């Protein structure tokens, strides 16, 4: 390696010597246009692989997708158990929120307040079976579609309360909630509403106590009809059953109204059965 090789970038002429020639003998380019050619085992300055070739691009894409897919699958499966536990805990917390109890540990408090989780038959309103805690469901929309109508029988300071899950659609996505009723199965004891993606400051206000507390003491049924409803803000005509909607969140408010009507309809037999 006594001599170095220099290549003219303009015409490709290769010069051998200690340093680049002052002028290229072929095209007269100055010394700055020459670059040294490094040979042998040492890694060349230029990229070893042609990263623009089709093969490389396709291989790169395939490997990347496979690696990322495996990685995500691994993360998902390793965290699944913890996540499901969180969802169960959160659902219990939501049920308890509708009862207005102070929650410290959702799992323990759920055991304290909720006596049993029962399924009812919408045709007769009778209890058909009791759901064990191990089979605690979290998606009551699917449960209702599968014909399982849950009622949570609770006990707050000696008084029996019934909590009914409700599901519906807001403006952007799902909305859901829990309606707690007094022992008379007619007066609202408390509610809890939440949403997947309603507009903050507008539709999302259904998740605030201000909106939820307005339901307290309202009557659910009028005869066989679900009378509990959400109306346009400022147009409440029957203070016993109607609640003000959210101004600016009309579609979400209507969603809550429709959700209460459709879901509670399945429970009318249960609610009128006062034994």
């Amino acid at each position, binding site marked *: 390696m006594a001599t170095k090789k220099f290549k003219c970038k303009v015409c490709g002429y290769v010069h051998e010597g200690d340093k680049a020639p002052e002028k290229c003998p072929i095209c007269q380019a100055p010394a700055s246009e020459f670059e040294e050619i490094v040979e042998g085992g040492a890694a060349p300055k230029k990229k070893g692989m042609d990263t623009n070739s089709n093969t490389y691009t396709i291989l790169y894409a395939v490997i990347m997708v496979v690696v990322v897919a495996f990685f995500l699958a691994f993360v998902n499966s390793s965290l699944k158990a913890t*996540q499901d536990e969180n969802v169960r805990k959160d659902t219990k917390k939501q049920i308890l929120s509708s009862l207005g109890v102070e929650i410290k540990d959702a799992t323990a408090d759920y055991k304290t307040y909720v006596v049993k989780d029962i399924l009812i038959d919408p045709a007769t309103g009778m209890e058909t079976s009791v759901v064990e805690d191990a089979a605690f469901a979290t998606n009551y929309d699917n449960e209702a579609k599968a014909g399982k109508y849950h009622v949570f029988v609770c006990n707050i300071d000696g008084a029996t309360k019934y909590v009914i899950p409700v599901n519906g659609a807001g403006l952007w996505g799902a909305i859901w909630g829990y309606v707690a009723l007094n022992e008379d199965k007619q007066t609202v004891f408390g509610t809890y509403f939440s949403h*997947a993606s309603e507009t903050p*400051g507008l539709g999302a206000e259904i998740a605030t106590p201000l909106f939820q507390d307005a339901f307290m003491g309202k009557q659910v049924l009028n005869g066989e009809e679900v009378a509990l409803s959400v109306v346009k803000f400022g147009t409440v005509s029957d203070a016993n059953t109607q609640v003000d909607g959210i101004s600016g969140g009309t579609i979400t408010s209507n969603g809550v109204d429709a959700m209460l009507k459709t879901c509670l309809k399945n429970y009318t037999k249960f609610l009128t059965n006062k034994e």
Partner: protein
Amino acid sequence: MSQLFSKKNREVFSSPISMNNPVTVQVLGICSALAVTAKLEPAIVMGLSVTVITAFSNVVISLLRKTVPNRIRIIVQLVVVAALVTIVSEILKAFAYDVSVQLSVYVGLIITNCILMGRLEAFAMSNGPWESFLDGIGNGLGYAKILVIVAFFRELLGSGTLLNFRIIPQSFYDMGYMNNGLMLMPPMALIIVACIIWFQRSRNKDLQEK
């Protein structure tokens, strides 16, 4: 060690927070600035998550930058960002469930945030991992800063609260003061951002176009 915090690196970190702010100067990430700024709290959470994701995707892309085939580089960047966002949201769901519930849709919005793609393409593809990390943090904070300012005004004037604490006293309402419902509508975010840009440009002659 001193090299890690050289003048150039400090510049990389601080310029996006002020003089080269991604939102007000480069006008990137406006869409999410509209969506999450009706309240202060989601704005803060969104700002922080974007900061974290920008920093880490910048590092990953910077490490990969010499191997990425030029023709599919945008897709590679998108995959890295989407994978990172998914992992972060999975981890949040498992270990900080309340936060993940609060973030809900915003996590998805991060993937499409133009600031991320902009920084990956403009900076991480041609700089080392450490510089890219600083650049990511700087841009994320620059974005968060604007979000917080916009959300501050929108929540204060639109709902009379800050972080859900009532700021404007009840006596004001009794005297006839009303919350400005318009402030909660997305267009107002644009107007506030525009006011910030106006303010910034009038103070900095460099930013004014001839």
